[in-house]
């Protein structure tokens, strides 16, 4: 009887061990698949960019002309457009996302109002981007046009500024949600200690909560930036899609993602198609660089 039980136990456990090993292997394979996928994408982009690299060389990066008729391609206006819209959107979004994060994380962590606000902010992230594009075109653009008329600028309405505003709204939830989670994770002992020393609420936030959560807040910003860099549909509808270099933030421009989306389906010769794919490569690399720099900064923050 005793022997039987122990035998069963052994067979059971050997089966369990095998299952454990199998499970681990599955995890590793799936994890590696992601690495292979990213490398595969990079490889495809590089290979498909070769015709364009050959005919245009490195000056593709700072070339200012995008002329499919004469096969001259320069990515600079779009690189500039992507960076301008993304960082402008980021700067405008920071006060909003931090305010939401602090309010929901510290002042109003519970209750119906908190839930309502939280769900609304998350809903913003769930709305498809084409809807923001339409909203931007129909509501925001006329408002920007009125502003431009008052400022005495050529009233295009659409342009870098409008695109940045639309992006701002789209990226707020990312930094706000992550920031809120981080702020709620601040140990209450720390805050209570500060209160017992006579700190006001604002002082607690400034000298306890924010220093404790800064790496998380920064990660949220980075996440928003990633979203802004790659956003295509909403931007292309309100940015003006011109390959001229913008001379002010109200001027029309274009981003890398929207050029690809606009011209890919009808690119009718090899170098043109390849130049568009190279644009994808540049976008890929820009994203990688920004993420790497961002991680470096986060690391520096956390080590202090």
């Amino acid at each position, binding site marked *: 009887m005793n022997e039987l039980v122990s035998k069963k136990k052994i067979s059971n456990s050997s089966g369990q061990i095998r299952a454990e090993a199998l499970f681990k292997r599955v995890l590793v394979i799936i994890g590696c698949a992601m690495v292979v996928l990213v490398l595969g994408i990079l490889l495809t982009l590089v290979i498909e960019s070769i015709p364009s690299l050959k005919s245009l060389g490195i000056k593709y990066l700072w070339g200012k002309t995008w002329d*499919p008729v004469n096969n001259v391609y320069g990515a600079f206006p779009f690189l500039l457009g992507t960076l301008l819209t993304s960082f402008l959107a980021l700067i405008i979004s920071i006060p909003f996302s931090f305010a939401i994060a602090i309010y929901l994380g510290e002042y109003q962590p519970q209750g119906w109002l908190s839930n309502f606000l939280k769900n609304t902010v998350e809903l913003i992230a769930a709305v498809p981007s084409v809807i923001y594009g339409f909203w931007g075109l129909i509501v925001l*653009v006329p408002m920007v046009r009125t502003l431009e008329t008052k400022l005495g600028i050529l009233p295009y309405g659409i342009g870098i500024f409008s695109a940045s505003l639309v992006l701002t709204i789209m990226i707020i939830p990312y930094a706000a949600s992550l920031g809120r989670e981080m702020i709620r994770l601040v140990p209450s002992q720390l805050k209570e200690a500060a209160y017992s020393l006579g700190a006001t609420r604002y002082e607690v936030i400034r000298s306890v909560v924010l220093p404790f959560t800064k790496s998380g807040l920064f990660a949220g910003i980075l996440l928003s930036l990633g979203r802004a860099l790659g956003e295509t549909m909403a931007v292309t509808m309100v940015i003006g899609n*011109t390959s001229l270099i913008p001379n002010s933030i109200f001027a029309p421009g274009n981003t890398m993602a929207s050029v690809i989306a606009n011209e890919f389906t*009808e690119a*009718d010769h090899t170098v043109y198609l390849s130049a568009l794919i190279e644009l994808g490569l540049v*976008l890929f690399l820009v994203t990688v660089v920004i993420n790497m720099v961002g*991680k470096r900064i986060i690391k520096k923050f956390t080590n202090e």
Partner: protein
Amino acid sequence: MKIPFISIRYLLLFIAMLLDSVGLQNKLNAQSNDKTLLGAGSTFIYPLFSKLFSEYNRKTGVEVNYQSIGSGGGILQLTNKTVDFGASDGPLNEEQATKMGAPALHIPMASGAVVITYNLPGGSSNFNLTPDIIADIFLGKIKQWNDPRLVAVNKGVNIPAFPILVIHRAEASGTTNIFTNYLSKVSPEWKSRVGSASAVNWPVGLGGKGNESVAGLVKQTPGALGYVELIYALQNKMDYAKLKNNKGKFILPSLASVTAAGNISLPADSKIFLTDTDAADGYPICGFTWALIYKEQNYGGRSRDRATKLLNLLWWNIHEGQQFSTPLNYAPLSKQALQVAEKILKSATYGGKPILK
């Protein structure tokens, strides 16, 4: 902290499109039975084609599956032999023709036109425009609505002082191809500075994605001027300009004046842009939409029956099918165009022998 690369989504999409173009769809053709013909291409002709194909199906039981993925996509799919016919708003360029590997036929199906639409508060609803004025507006040389040259061709019309905001298509399109082809014909400066293609390096203005976006921007921006397909302007009741053709007449774009533009002697292969037509009553910015097929239909294991069905369909399109054009705001083919199209269809072969008699 893990930070996902958001833009990977787009890259994946990208890869999917590449794979698509490489020809993973080759199997499609083999799978579809001989009762269903496959086509792909021009979005412009799509509404007409869906009407034609549903009528044809009711009459003959032959089904046609047409995907409106854009002219370039249609050409690519025909090159990969995944469809029986492509449809394009522009003729094949040299590189595309070379990639095809075998001679392809261009059969005109309908004509379309590009109109200059605008929004000028207090202005007239049918301005007169001349070719050189349009070219100079799109070159950025005429910047104001009350430019003396504009005033000179619109005597007695009130033109307020307003800056002109030029709006063009953002994405590559057949509409742009026809429009820039016209500008290249009428303006040597445009030809040398910009040229003609489905996407060009615009000297001024901003881009809207699709006809609807250009139309939307023109409607909401005072002083805006852009170009859209005639159908689009008709359906949306927009203001559009009368254009001076090369016989010196100011022509209002309409189905009749578009059909008239095709009443000229056409080359035997019909590969011609109808822009700047010599027809006295023709509107000058017009173009054909062609169906594209291989001249030799015996390829990739296709049956003679399938080839015959395809040819019969296209024959029907340019004859009985033409009655459906006008109600849908497409300009029917002119007499000359019809004759040329018939000859081209008769030149298609199966195993070297003509299919249609």
